[in-house]
């Protein structure tokens, strides 16, 4: 069983080595002509307007957190949907319980007023 980890070790060594070698080579033999445009922060090709260190409204974070929860829910539902036939009634009931818990969470968030922007 220990031998079966040898490929993993080889892969690890190769990937670390590859990253190191490419970085080192481009650092050593790459040509560098820095211009002002090249040195500004990359913002999807747009010319930056102002500093990136803006203060965001904290509401964005709440929305992001809620999104993550329901995103993970979908990630959990995909494998269930694929194996729906095999899991049968048991799987259906478990998924219903899972969704029910999330619905309770949504109700909680709604009641707290986290869904209102103002």
């Amino acid at each position, binding site marked *: *069983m*220990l031998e079966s980890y040898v490929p993993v070790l080889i892969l690890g060594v190769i990937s670390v080595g590859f990253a190191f070698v490419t970085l080192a080579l481009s650092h050593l033999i790459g040509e560098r002509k820095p211009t002002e445009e090249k040195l500004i922060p990359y913002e999807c090709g747009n010319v930056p307007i102002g500093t990136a260190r803006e203060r965001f409204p904290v509401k964005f974070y709440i929305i992001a957190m809620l999104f993550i929860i329901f995103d993970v829910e979908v990630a959990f539902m995909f494998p269930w949907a694929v194996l729906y036939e095999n899991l049968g009634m048991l799987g259906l009931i478990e998924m219903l319980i899972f969704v029910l818990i999330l619905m309770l969470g949504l109700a909680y*968030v*709604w009641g707290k007023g986290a869904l209102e922007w103002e």
Partner: protein
Amino acid sequence: MANFDFLSISPDLVLIAFAVLFLLMGSFSRTPGVHNYNMLSISAFSLAILFNLLLFGSKRFGFYDMMLYDELAGIFRFIFYGIGIIVSLMSDPYIEGKIKHKGEYYALIILSIVGMSFIATSYDLIMLVLGVEAMSLSVYILAGMFKHDEASAEASIKYFLLGAFSTAIMLLGIAFVYGTVGTTNYSLIVQNYNKYLHGGIQTGIFLFGVAAILAGVLFKIAAVPFHMWTPDVYEGAPTSVTAFMISGVKAASFFMLIRVFLIALKVAVFNFVDIMVFISIITMTLGNIAALTQRNIKRMLAYSSIAHAGYMLIGFVALNKTGLAAIVFYLIAYALMNLGAFAVLVLLEEKGKDLEHVSGCGFLYPFLGLMMTIFMFSMVGLPPTGGFMGKFYVFKGALEAGYLWLVIIAVLNSAVSAYFYLRVLVYMFFEKPIDAGGALRTSSATVTTALVLTSVGILFLGIFPQFFFEITTKYMTYLP
């Protein structure tokens, strides 16, 4: 084998239902001030205790053998739910006006205790991690419940980061154990170890996994190489939450140590006895010596909890029936005396958090003074208190296993600890009060109930120790 034994988790189901109710009450109620969350929470725990009482004595496998409810798990459920009741009793006057979201506070305490109960009934490493996370995540949030208090926020983030890291180490260990024995089920781990591994070339990998799991568990019980978070977190968190962490989380973590290492990993546990002896000595010594210099009472009690973890580890080192049963006994006494001491602090905290601030309180508030005396005596280990009998049984177990020198070190440590515990009483009774006029706002009936319950419990454990010790010895069936 889809044995859905909902009966065996019925106490937890009751608690989860109440927690959801609290959350919805907290969010939809237009009159948040009027609800008696603490009374509701006490009735939830009482109901859970009742259900557990009905179950007690049976041995049930459930949920694809991921859970095993046995007598010792039942005893620990009683401990957790009892801690829940006392914490609910002492919380309300303390958090009143300081925490806006009271429903959430009680819901998180309940959910954390559900996590502990899942640890107690786990029969699979995955289930164990689930319980640990349910317990810890709730406590991370609880520690930061005073959102506008910097120390509280620091405690929360520190506990969260280090706790997440320790869980990662523990999961790594579980992965290694799974990699070598091919299962996470407690009984199958033992079977497969004996069948395939047994001293073979991969035993080293298995032992590495066990060591990583041990590191994760030692983090939770705040044993020395992994204790750094304890003082800051216990000092910064709201006092009622600290009481909950210091009693509940510690009890759950010790049961995790006993359950995992004496059911699932008992094949490896003897490899770790030597290092556990070392950890135990260094834990109690460092805890006691660091506590000597503390002026802040909460921080002092945090270091004292490290020292107590060291004493309890002696019972684990002994690895015999007396020693292991003594851990359970010690945990009950330890939980009671810490809950009691923190209940006193909850009332006195308005005056300040340092030793100077409690000056003279013993005579100003004779009841609180008497209570603090009982709790501090119990922490030192003076008869007739539960702390004394706990130490006595732990040392007895170690002597039976032949660790005379370990017991001598522990007794010396105990003597050192008398200084800082009794110093609290010196300040309370022999120093002049700094502001005699400052009357306390709260002499709350619920906190008084908590104090009476805990002190009577400690004296009962100290005067009639056989009653509990016989129960714990009888049900301590996990032996290596």
